[in-house]
């Protein structure tokens, strides 16, 4: 199973970025190997618009089954849903903490966008 977590930094000890599309890093966690790989998302941090659309496309391209983030806007939600990626939102604290909370709890993926699309 592969998870992507939106992050303010490249390490599992960094804070979860509540924004999905404009998070500086997307951290991929592979549960089969228990490894983290940080992906630089700075292109979307600087994007004039549509950051969520492109970040969602990248999450799908990474082969992720699920996304852990703070909030997910309508366009990113549409892209991720079309690809069957489950979205878990409302996370704060460290990336590692979010991962443990997800592993330990019986959380439900969101069924509609919970963030406002922004320019």
């Amino acid at each position, binding site marked *: 199973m592969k998870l992507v977590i939106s992050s303010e930094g490249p390490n599992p000890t960094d804070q979860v970025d509540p924004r999905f599309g404009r998070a500086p890093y997307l951290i991929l966690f592979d549960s089969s190997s228990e490894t983290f790989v940080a992906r630089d998302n700075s292109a979307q941090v600087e994007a004039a618009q549509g950051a969520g659309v492109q970040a969602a*496309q990248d999450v799908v391209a990474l082969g992720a089954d699920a996304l852990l983030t703070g909030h997910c806007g309508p366009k990113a939600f549409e892209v991720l849903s079309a690809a069957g990626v489950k979205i878990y939102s409302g996370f704060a604290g460290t990336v590692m903490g979010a991962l443990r909370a997800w592993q330990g709890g019986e959380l439900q993926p969101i069924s509609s966008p919970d963030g406002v699309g922004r320019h």
Partner: protein
Amino acid sequence: MRIAIASGKGGTGKTTVAVNLAVTIARQGRSVHLCDCDVEEPNAHLFLDPVFSGSWPVTVPVPAVAQDTCTHCGMCAEICEFNSIACLPSRTMIFPDLCHSCGGCWLVCPQKAITPEDETIGSISTGKAGELIFTQGRLIVGKTLVPPLIEAVKDVPGDESWIIFDAPPGTTCPVVATMQGVDFVLLVAEPTPFGRHDLALALELTRQLAIPCGVVINRYEGNPGQVEKFCLREGVEILARIPFRRQIAAACAEGGLAVDADPEVAAAVSGLIDNLRTRAVMA
């Protein structure tokens, strides 16, 4: 002569100046066409009560994907500067409200799976208010691509001797679209710190576009203030001063004309027209 009326700051009196200027020119027996280019919030018609004789939609081309011929190669998403395409392994998704109609995606698609499709972004209405010819654009609420609609509005006037474009506030793309190609820009400023600040931004824009401009001070209270000092320092001519008076505000609130409410405004607008006419002769 093609004139744009702009301000930077909102609420300084662009539409008041535009409407009173246009009506006064029409009353002088000259052909004049006023275009409300503030397509996100058109309001000049409130003061003119025009009779519209024509109305039509304005469209822009946006991509449509034939999913059965698309191989999801991703070249369309790659070339899109506006992140309006997401290419997934088994599906390519388009977000038309992010599209700027550049046409890159349908040019680059090796399968010819993307074709342009018309999307309506707004409408144009044209007609007359007395002898004044009046055109307005109106963007559909929720649409974000403003400049193509403004450009379509600006295409409506013909060979009228005076063509006046009432610009939206700000100094962003819609204002640039309104200013482009005009002979002169009138910058309407109010004598406040905020007004002076945004006048500087608007002045900088006219300089970057290399369009001559002059200033109209609205809500003028009689003593030379920071806007006049700024204009003096920058070498920008003040072409008219509209006084700050209750009777003018009352007339505007009822949809009336400032030139009918206050003789001093009528004189200021007549002087403004004379000044602009000398510039048209020089140009």
